[in-house]
């Protein structure tokens, strides 16, 4: 697997447009700043994942189709990023979807088949909408090439394409497939899907909004901002309720996609309203967050794969105390978690900070709608930031800290060195980008210039100017990191000199009782229950306690507690929609399958008329 991915690097060879002509179709490829950014992003993260998979993939050696599929999966994403005409784009988009579908159903079993089907369905609804967008573009420009699409897309085209891409990105009303599909795939595939694939939808949106878009539709930016803020909040709120580690991470992907969408929304709005510096900073936040989320999420998914591999469970209520058995993995996991829950000296905070700055900037603009919606977005973003801290404290605390809850967790061992290296590289990059981002910001300036026509200042000590010429604020991560390290050293050596160094190992205090039952620790469900109770309107949870009726209260031999957390969108939109669809199709079925040939001919005539009407009134 890994060797195959290295061949990807050879693609960097060509610089200008490349057209492969065949008898009936032309494939055309072109590198621009945006596609180069995505190619580097995809290939570097997939290299980390493939290093990880050298050892982790051994358990799939008996069924090696995994490696073939994933090779084509990554290749199709890379070619997608460099394709320069509509047909190439759609073909590789479809290939990406199909190979990821094959990988979702790879492990087999009822659960993954169900998830795979849902994914297949949703992603194809998305593809239909994207295709519709492209067809409308073709009708407008009568060309397949992206070169002719610049400034051609009107509001209908943008709406269709963005809806299609948001399904792939897992933005809130369309997210239902994501928490099912990401956890059932093998961990390295989940890492690719969550770290990379969802970002291809962002690529499409950036291409449509900033390259193809014909100009001003500022309300579209506001819609994206609101959708993103909702996904950010609800995604992390649902993540908090999960027991399955990978499901928690999948919901967190929805949150981060929401944050990226917020950035895109602000940037597009600022572009339409001509607030230059807000546009650039929001775009910087988007690009940085793509990188940060890709790095930390892929490392966390790989880590969760290792937990699964060495303990045979992903349920955090059955884990605990892994930090003692998997010390190095837990350190890497901790840094990944700090990065993704936006803790200051790391990279996650950097992109969120730029997003906050652009949100404050759009409040400054005094534009009525944007002020209103950015205040809401600031509230939702800060709430989701704190909730992310809670969700990931739960993940780390329940899984890695405390005492092992079951024998599975007790028997865990430190993962193989190659697996740890695969996680360590993205984690190291998280720290590097967090502490010294200036290099990467000055490189990203090329992409920002391609998309928006301007650049941001990457000088470490020049303050951010958001709206007027006056400097507004500055977050100098290098300075903060140095201050943290210096103060830490001073405190450490002060205490080394002036305090007792004696240490005693003793058992945990449990009110003087001798507590042997490790299940008496705080559970993950208990951890999040108080927050969930306050925000109970977001969940439609059903909990139930079953016990024997006739036995006295304190002598029950057995009581069963079940809790079910339902997605409100699933419960109130998707399941009713499914029922409605079944009902309607039954009616059609009855009507269409009549035995009478005259009726069938009548339908034929009717559909012809409908086609004529569509041709005359819509297409022409």
């Amino acid at each position, binding site marked *: 697997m890994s060797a195959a991915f290295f061949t990807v690097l050879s693609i960097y060879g060509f610089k200008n447009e490349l057209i492969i002509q065949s008898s009936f179709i032309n494939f055309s490829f072109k590198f621009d700043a945006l596609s180069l950014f995505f190619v580097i992003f995809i290939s570097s993260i997939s290299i980390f994942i493939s290093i990880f998979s050298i050892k982790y993939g051994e358990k799939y050696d008996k069924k090696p189709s995994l490696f073939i599929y994933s090779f084509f999966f990554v290749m199709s994403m890379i070619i997608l990023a460099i394709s320069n005409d509509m047909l190439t784009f759609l073909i590789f988009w479809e290939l990406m979807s199909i190979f990821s579908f094959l990988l979702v159903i790879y492990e087999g079993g009822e659960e993954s088949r169900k998830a795979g089907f849902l994914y297949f369905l949703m992603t194809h609804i998305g593809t239909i909408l994207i295709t519709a967008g492209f067809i409308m573009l073709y009708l407008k420009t009568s060309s397949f090439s992206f070169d002719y699409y610049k400034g051609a897309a009107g509001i209908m085209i943008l709406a269709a394409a963005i809806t299609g891409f948001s399904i792939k990105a897992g933005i809130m009303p369309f997210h239902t497939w994501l928490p099912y599909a990401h956890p059932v795939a093998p961990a390295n595939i989940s890492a690719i899907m969550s770290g990379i694939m969802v970002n291809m939808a962002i690529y499409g949106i950036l291409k449509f909004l900033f390259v193809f878009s014909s100009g001003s539709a500022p309300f579209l930016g506001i819609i994206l901002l609101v959708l993103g803020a909702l996904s950010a909040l609800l995604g992390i709120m649902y993540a908090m309720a999960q027991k399955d580690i990978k499901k928690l991470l999948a919901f967190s992907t929805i949150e981060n996609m929401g944050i990226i969408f917020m950035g895109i929304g602000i940037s597009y709005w600022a572009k339409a309203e001509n607030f230059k510096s807000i546009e650039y900073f929001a775009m910087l936040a988007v690009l940085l967050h793509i990188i940060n989320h890709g790095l930390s999420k892929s490392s966390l998914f790989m880590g969760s794969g290792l937990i699964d591999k060495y303990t045979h469970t992903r349920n955090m209520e059955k884990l605990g105390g892994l930090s003692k058995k998997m010390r190095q993995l837990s350190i890497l996991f901790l840094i990944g978690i700090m990065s993704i829950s936006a803790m200051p000296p790391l990279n996650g905070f950097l992109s969120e900070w730029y997003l906050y700055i652009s949100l404050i900037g759009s409040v400054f603009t005094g534009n009525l709608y944007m002020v209103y919606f950015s205040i809401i977005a600031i509230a939702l973003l800060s709430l989701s930031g704190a909730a992310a801290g809670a969700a990931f404290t739960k993940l780390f605390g329940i899984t890695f800290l405390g005492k092992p809850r079951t024998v599975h967790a007790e028997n865990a061992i430190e993962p193989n060195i190659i697996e740890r290296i695969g996680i360590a590289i993205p984690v190291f990059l998280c720290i590097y980008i967090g502490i010294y981002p200036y290099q990467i910001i000055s490189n990203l300036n090329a992409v920002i210039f391609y998309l928006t026509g301007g650049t941001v200042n990457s000088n470490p000590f020049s303050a951010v100017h958001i709206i007027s010429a006056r400097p507004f604020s500055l977050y100098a991560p290098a300075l903060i990191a140095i201050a943290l390290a210096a103060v830490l050293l001073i405190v450490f050596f002060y205490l080394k000199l002036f305090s007792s160094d004696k240490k005693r190992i003793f058992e945990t205090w449990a009110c003087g009782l001798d507590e042997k039952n490790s299940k008496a620790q705080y559970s993950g469900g208990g951890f999040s229950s*108080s927050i969930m109770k306050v925000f109970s309107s977001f969940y439609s949870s059903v909990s139930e306690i079953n016990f024997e009726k006739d036995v006295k209260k304190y002598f029950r031999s057995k009581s069963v507690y079940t809790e079910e957390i339902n997605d409100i969108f699933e419960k109130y939109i998707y399941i009713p929609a499914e029922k409605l669809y079944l009902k309607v199709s039954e009616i059609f079925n009855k009507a269409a399958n009549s035995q009478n040939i005259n009726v069938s001919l009548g339908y034929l005539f009717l559909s012809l008329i409908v086609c004529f009407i569509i041709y005359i009134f819509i297409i022409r």
Partner: protein
Amino acid sequence: MTYNYNIQHLIIGIIQFFTIILLAPFFAGFIHKLKQRARGQKGINIFQFYINFNKLLKKEIVLSKDATFISEIAPYIVFVSYLVILLMLPAFYRYSLLGVSSDVILIAYSLALATFFMTLYAMDQGSAFGGLGASREWFLTVLSEPSLIFIFISLAIYTKQGRITDIFYFIQKGAADAFLLGVNSDAVSIAIPFLLFISLFIVGISENARIPVDNPETHLELTMFHEANILEASGKHLGLFEYGSYLKLTVFLTVMSLILFPYMAVNIYQIPLSLIVYILKMIILCILIAGVEIVSPKMRVFRVPNLLSVSFMLSLIAMILSIRGF
């Protein structure tokens, strides 16, 4: 505003930093003493918390046998993240050491960093108390973080500055212009600081484990928030956590004092006066907090969201008021 560091700024910045650190246990002890006297008890020595810290440093550390590396590093990181906030915060001098990068959102997230490590510490020993404390701590943080960020961002919008040093200097200058020189400045508003002060007061009470939300003196499992997190800590770890909580209280009180009456020295000659004013303001705020703690009963946990949503609404109103067209 531009930052030109010279040796004077550095020296006064260092003096300011260490003064706040040294004063922090005094403020906490003062509140404690006031509460005890109001209850009719004799009360502790005002400097008791210094003695406690010194004693804790001399004691041995008892680590749980289930503890991991988190127990070793978390006390330091919690303490250091408060110290870094203090490095950014101006108290009685216009510049602070890290003033150039003292962004308000950074301060809010640094507080979250401390909470993050404190709750991880709580969960490290596998004690049910720790899990309970961590759960409750995040419960409060999730609810109070939006209002804290709203307070900071409305200050930023009100003054059109993003750095906390600049924000308070701007308010101070505007107020001085208006009241001393009679210049009509747009930086003068009574309503916004008033609303922000009340809002920050509520957030400060909930974040600093004060009655009506939490009682800092209790070790009863039903009522613990903050104490449940550090129940397993001992020796210098406990000392760091305790000192960290004094520092956190001081951070909140300092921001409140600056909203209440922004007076900071702009040169070295004003330092004595501004230091006295700072301590006076802090003592007034301490009396206020002690008063609230004495007269109010402790709330049920699930009524705390109501209190915090009041604070959120007040900060929202302040933010709306502070939006003035550009």
